[in-house]
């Protein structure tokens, strides 16, 4: 004869069994997400569910900002107005000069038969919040796929390149900052046109030029702009300025630290650039040409970050 416990003793599976179940579920998700990137569909569905909470969380802060702006004192507003007017004058001056220079450049390019540079379209967006993740440098902006954002678009603020859109949800998008450890951006020294790749420094909040020869022609205070060689970032945007160079005879490469130009840790408004660049295709891999592995290229992109492969 079989005895079963009365129903009020039934407590489901033992806690350890439950723990094993949920832990293995988490591990499966981790592997799927980190190794194979299969979990994006699930992520976008969940992101839509979390979106209202995000909006509600940021709303009081925005409201407080608006209220304090409303009650901002007259003198403060006047001061700000004057400062903005000065900046507008300066900007319009440089814009006029740039217009002339651009016309000239277009003419010259037409003369030598080079492809014309396409105008860059931009979408203004506001930084909702900094990522809570201490291991990566990300911000979330309030524009998403519904506003026409595309994966991989560069993001700039008024001072320079901020980062790159690395994940697009319906209403929000994640921007990986140039200081993220996995982010790389091809740059050029403004002074002499030397090309390099700037990698994020991670927790230090700096950028790093790796694989530059110890005797490379680079000095403190050099300004770095995007080289545009990757077809992702339009050329000529300020990225960083060189702040520290260590040349050690024991190493083949110099250690070069750079201070990012954009306010990577400050919130505010940003521009998401989109450029339908008429970029010519990359040359085929040597291996693919040899017919060893036809059409099989290992995707090496991590987090959709700026691809160091692009600079070759």
């Amino acid at each position, binding site marked *: 004869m079989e005895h079963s416990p009365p129903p009020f003793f039934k407590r489901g599976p033992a*806690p350890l069994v439950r723990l094993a179940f949920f832990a293995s579920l988490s591990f499966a998700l981790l592997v799927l997400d980190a190794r194979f990137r299969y979990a994006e569909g*699930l992520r976008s569905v*969940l992101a839509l569910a979390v979106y209202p909470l995000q909006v509600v969380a940021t709303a009081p802060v925005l409201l407080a900002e608006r209220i304090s702006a409303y009650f901002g004192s007259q003198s403060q507003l006047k001061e700000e107005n004057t400062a903005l007017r000065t900046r507008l004058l300066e900007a319009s001056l440089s814009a006029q000069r740039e217009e002339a220079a651009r016309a000239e450049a277009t003419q010259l390019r037409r003369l030598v038969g080079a492809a014309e540079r396409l105008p860059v379209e931009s979408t203004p967006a506001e930084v909702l919040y*900094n990522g809570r993740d201490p*291991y*990566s440098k*990300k911000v*979330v902006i309030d524009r998403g796929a519904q506003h026409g954002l595309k994966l991989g678009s560069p993001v700039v603020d008024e001072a320079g390149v901020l980062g790159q859109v690395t994940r697009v949800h319906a209403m929000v998008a994640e921007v990986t900052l140039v200081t993220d450890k996995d982010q790389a951006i091809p740059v050029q020294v403004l002074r002499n046109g030397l090309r390099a790749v700037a990698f994020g420094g991670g927790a230090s909040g700096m950028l790093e030029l790796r694989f530059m020869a110890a005797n490379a022609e680079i000095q403190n205070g050099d300004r770095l702009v995007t080289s545009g060689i990757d077809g992702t970032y339009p050329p000529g945007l300020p990225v960083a300025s060189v702040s520290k160079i260590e040349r050690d005879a024991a190493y083949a490469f110099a250690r070069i630290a750079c201070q990012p130009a954009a306010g990577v840790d400050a919130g505010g408004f940003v521009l998401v650039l989109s450029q339908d660049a008429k970029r010519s295709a990359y040359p085929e891999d040597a291996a693919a040409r040899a017919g060893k592995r036809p059409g099989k290229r290992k995707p090496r992109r991590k987090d959709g970050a700026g691809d160091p492969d692009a600079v070759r």
Partner: protein
Amino acid sequence: MQFGDMPTEQRILLPVRASTILGSFAVALLLNFLPWRNIAVVPDFVALALAFWCVRQPRLVGLGAAWCLGLATDVGNGVLLGQHALAYSLLAFSAITLSRRILWFSLWGQSLHVAAILMFAQAVGLAVRLATGADFPGWSVAIGPLVGAALWPVVSSLLLIPQRHPAEPDPTRPL
């Protein structure tokens, strides 16, 4: 220990309502999504609320709730799917395992236990990130759990308010 020692909560509480639990989790998620300036010192409010309910109501709030909250946190923060889910599952498990013990301590004694639990969850997250190739972000990651544990007395008295009896000035009332 003297015979007759009671858990610190001597009063008999009303049964908890599901809306209280759900509401507290929603508020915790909200607090986590607030645009904090310095995230290093901000505790993980979801972890704190989860630890509270796992200690107080281990039969109602368990690993399933922890896992779902972890997934929501993962998506909201844009980190690897499963990182917080794993950390919160382990947190819920340790909180449920310790739940019978914790309530016998004073509020500050409880918060020492909670510090250990929150630190453990943070360490799980750290291990996951280091395994997937992130840099060690510095010892500031340990500040958040300590602040969270320091908030434990406040949080636990706040979250118990809905379960307290209304003040009845009846001296003949047995309880």
